[in-house]
């Protein structure tokens, strides 16, 4: 296995989460959220495309790799679940992405230029997730219960986000900042920070090891392109 480099894991995170969010099209609880989730997906798709273009052919990278050759964090591939699960996934991921891209943006290479561009989009994604976390957590008894359940269920996948991918980034400090921010949001939302430690911080998706739902995601995402190689319309 060749080393995935820097751009590829970041691109895979963005593509796979984009695909998950796009699955809400036609299913979102209200029209405004339908539009919102599609917009988040579009931003992430744009980021993924820019990052893939730095590595090679966008279509080949997105549609012709098998499961073990994707390096996205397992958090991004988790199914949408109910709306609270989608929001918890967004809260955990967008907080991480904003902090990471903010640090990356100080560099001078192509990834830095993209990160500087994307960080303001990511801040808006985080803002959207925080607003919904507060509304659901500090809402009705039912919404509180479901938001807590989602926050607990996805917590185990957050440790992996801090597995070092980009040289020169202090991932321990990134993790501490992330924990402080997420704790503040969950607490304000009257939710309990999950009392158990996330699963081990090492590898997993970053080493090409994925959870069971990822295979079905890839099958749906890739089958058209693989069924009609080189097709154009």
């Amino acid at each position, binding site marked *: 296995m060749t080393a995935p480099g820097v751009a590829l894991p970041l691109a895979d995170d963005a593509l796979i989460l984009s695909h998950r969010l796009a699955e809400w099209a036609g299913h979102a609880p209200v029209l405004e959220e339908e539009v919102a989730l599609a917009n988040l997906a579009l931003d992430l798709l744009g980021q993924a495309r*820019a990052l893939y273009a730095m590595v090679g052919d966008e279509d080949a990278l997105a549609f012709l790799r098998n499961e073990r050759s994707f390096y996205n964090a397992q958090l991004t591939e988790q199914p949408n679940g109910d709306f609270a699960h989608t929001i918890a996934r967004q809260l955990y991921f967008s907080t991480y992405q904003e902090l990471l891209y903010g640090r990356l943006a100080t560099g001078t290479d192509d990834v830095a230029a993209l990160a500087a561009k994307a960080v303001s989009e990511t801040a*808006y994604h985080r803002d*959207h997730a925080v607003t919904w976390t507060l509304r659901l957590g500090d809402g009705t008894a039912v919404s509180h219960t479901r938001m807590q359940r989602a926050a607990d269920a996805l917590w185990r996948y957050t440790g992996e986000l801090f597995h070092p991918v980009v040289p020169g980034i202090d991932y321990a400090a990134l993790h501490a900042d992330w924990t402080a921010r997420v704790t503040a949001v969950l607490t304000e939302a009257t939710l309990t920070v999950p009392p158990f430690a996330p699963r081990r911080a090492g590898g997993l998706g970053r080493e090409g090891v994925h959870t069971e739902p990822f295979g079905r995601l890839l099958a749906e995402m890739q089958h058209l392109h693989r069924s009609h190689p080189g097709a154009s319309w």
Partner: protein
Amino acid sequence: MTAAKAFRAVAGAVPDPELPVITLDELGVLRDVRVEPPTWPDEGPRVTVELTPTYTGCPAVEAMADDIRRALTAHGAAAVTVLTVYAPPWSTDDISPRGRAKLAAAGIAPPRPRGGGPVLVPLTPMRLAPAPLPPPRCPQCGSADTELLSRFSSTACTALRRCATCREPFDHMKEH
């Protein structure tokens, strides 16, 4: 006018595909136009255009590139290359005053100035801190009494608001 200036004026006058009331020049997405002289006397010059996206995923970028190619070819360019550049990142502060006026006239509340420089973090708790920007004004009646309906609207760059005075909903181009 030099050839480069002339081509820049043509590319800059291309309307935005999603907000056609303003031009690419007014939107501030045109970064550079370079002209190489023709290889042969009877050939037109080769033009390279640097374009920056408003949002990384903005689907209008490809339409912009196509429109620029068409306009410059019609103006006599032999070949047109459109490159996408990310640095420095585009911001809504790059929209010209004329562009803002045109947006408002079309019923789209223009983005408020973000200002350059560092973002000041107040020492008071965030919820007690004054709102960083005044609310966008209604483009129909000018009232400042407007509310957010949806953080996302018909395009990636706009939010949907409603005026509490005249009750009209309107798009607001988000500060970005």
